[in-house]
């Protein structure tokens, strides 16, 4: 586990499958080896009368864990549990009900290139598999602090994506967080990276895709 940067890839009049194929070819030409498939999915459970949502997410990189994020509109509280949490959510079904229409997932091939791990995910939503876009995940495994290796990952992304590579640090890392000392700005950029950070980046992008397709829920 290392620092992971998630970035959307603009399609430019190509179909999703074409773009994935082109990127795969590019990676293989750079000397990468394909190492299986991956899947990240996100589900939303809504409270029946309060404005509380629980995002329940799975990541195939951590197959024995369930990541859940409680969102009450102002604050997000993450929780990492064992797989049995899924069954617990079924038990509380009358109060928290799942919205099948906005279940979203990102899946695709997974490549290893030196110490880098690159995942090309095509994002699909709801049960009829509406294609939404492409999310590229780059994981630099030896490094644990985003601030140390952001420039290095940026250079790697430029080598892979060219013009489409991101130039700014993803907002997830630069957003100021509440801290004990009000004078000190605190954000995740200098923190040690945790698996939940990957999942929260996915959640941010999934929410963007959900907003594109429908009016904001509730």
């Amino acid at each position, binding site marked *: *586990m290392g620092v992971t940067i998630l970035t959307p890839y603009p399609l430019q009049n190509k179909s999703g499958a074409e773009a994935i194929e082109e990127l795969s070819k590019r990676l293989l030409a750079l*000397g990468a080896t394909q190492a299986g498939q991956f899947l990240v999915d996100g589900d939303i459970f809504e409270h029946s009368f309060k404005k509380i949502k629980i995002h329940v997410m799975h990541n195939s990189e951590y197959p024995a864990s369930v990541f859940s994020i409680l969102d009450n509109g102002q604050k997000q509280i993450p929780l990492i549990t064992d797989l049995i949490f899924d069954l617990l959510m079924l038990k509380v079904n009358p109060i928290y009900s799942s919205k099948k229409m906005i279940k979203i997932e990102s899946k695709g091939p997974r490549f290893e*290139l*030196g*110490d*880098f791990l690159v995942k090309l995910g095509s994002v699909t939503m709801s049960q009829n598999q509406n294609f939404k876009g492409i999310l590229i995940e780059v994981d*630099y*495994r*030896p*490094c*644990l*602090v985003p*601030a*140390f*290796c952001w*420039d*290095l990952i940026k*250079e*790697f992304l430029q*080598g892979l994506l060219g013009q489409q590579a991101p130039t700014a640090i993803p907002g997830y890392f630069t957003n100021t967080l509440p801290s004990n000392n009000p004078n000190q700005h605190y954000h995740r950029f200098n923190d*040690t990276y945790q698996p939940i950070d990957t999942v929260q980046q996915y959640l941010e992008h999934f929410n963007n895709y959900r907003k594109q397709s429908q009016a904001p829920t509730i």
Partner: protein
Amino acid sequence: MENQINSAINAIKLLRSSVSNVFETTLSAQNNSIQDESSFLLELQDQLSTVDVNFKSIESTINALNVPSGPFTLGNTAVLNHEADPDRQGVYTDLVNSYNWYEKTHLYSALANTMLSQNSLKRSFYTSSNKRRRPTVPVNPAQLVDHMINSINTNNMTIKVYRPFGTPTSAFLHVNLSRVMKAAIILRGLVIELVTVKGFNEPLDSVDDHWIESRYAVFRKIQDHAHCAMLHFYSPTFAELATRSFITWLASYSNIFSEPCKRCQRFLLNNLPPTYRDFRSLEPLHEECRH
């Protein structure tokens, strides 16, 4: 003599390939009955003339060969001719192969000997006098090591001393460099014996972990460079200074992911960050950029 035989063998090979070309053309012409007859004839004539040329060159090379003056002196191997057992007929080729192999070993060891005598990397120190001919192990190494560690004061770096085998002469130094990497330095007296470099999230607690390589290519590369540095800084007379310089050199890796290569100004080359640090200036460089 050998050259002549070689060129004769090559000429025979050429002739064989040109003859097989002729057969191939006739065969394909037979299969394609619609093929233009005149072009086929032209092609065949062309190839036959090459065969002719090759044949003549063989004749000339064979004429140039000298008849060997006497029987070859093959030593005991000549007796192999009299071997009747078909199982042992193949021995001759094996014999030639092993002879060649020995020749090469001899050649390479001679080369290695000259190389090693130019670069002296002796790890043990002996004085010329007969009385003092024993390795220099300090009087009370445990105190010296503790004193040295306490006096090293580098940012971003914590050093802990372990003595897992209870002996005062050997100590394990566990170095944590910022939140970037871990290293273990095994000391004998004040002399570095072994260096292991690992990622910050890799285990280095049990004694066995010191002999397991890191799972990341970056740290495996750094470990290789650390071994070079260990030999570079090695000095039996100033052991403390040598170890201290090595630790200072190792501390320069705290910016391994955040500092681009001084020469090419880029972070990545062959998917690795600049894994080399200059021994004097401590500048970050890619392994390929350092010359």
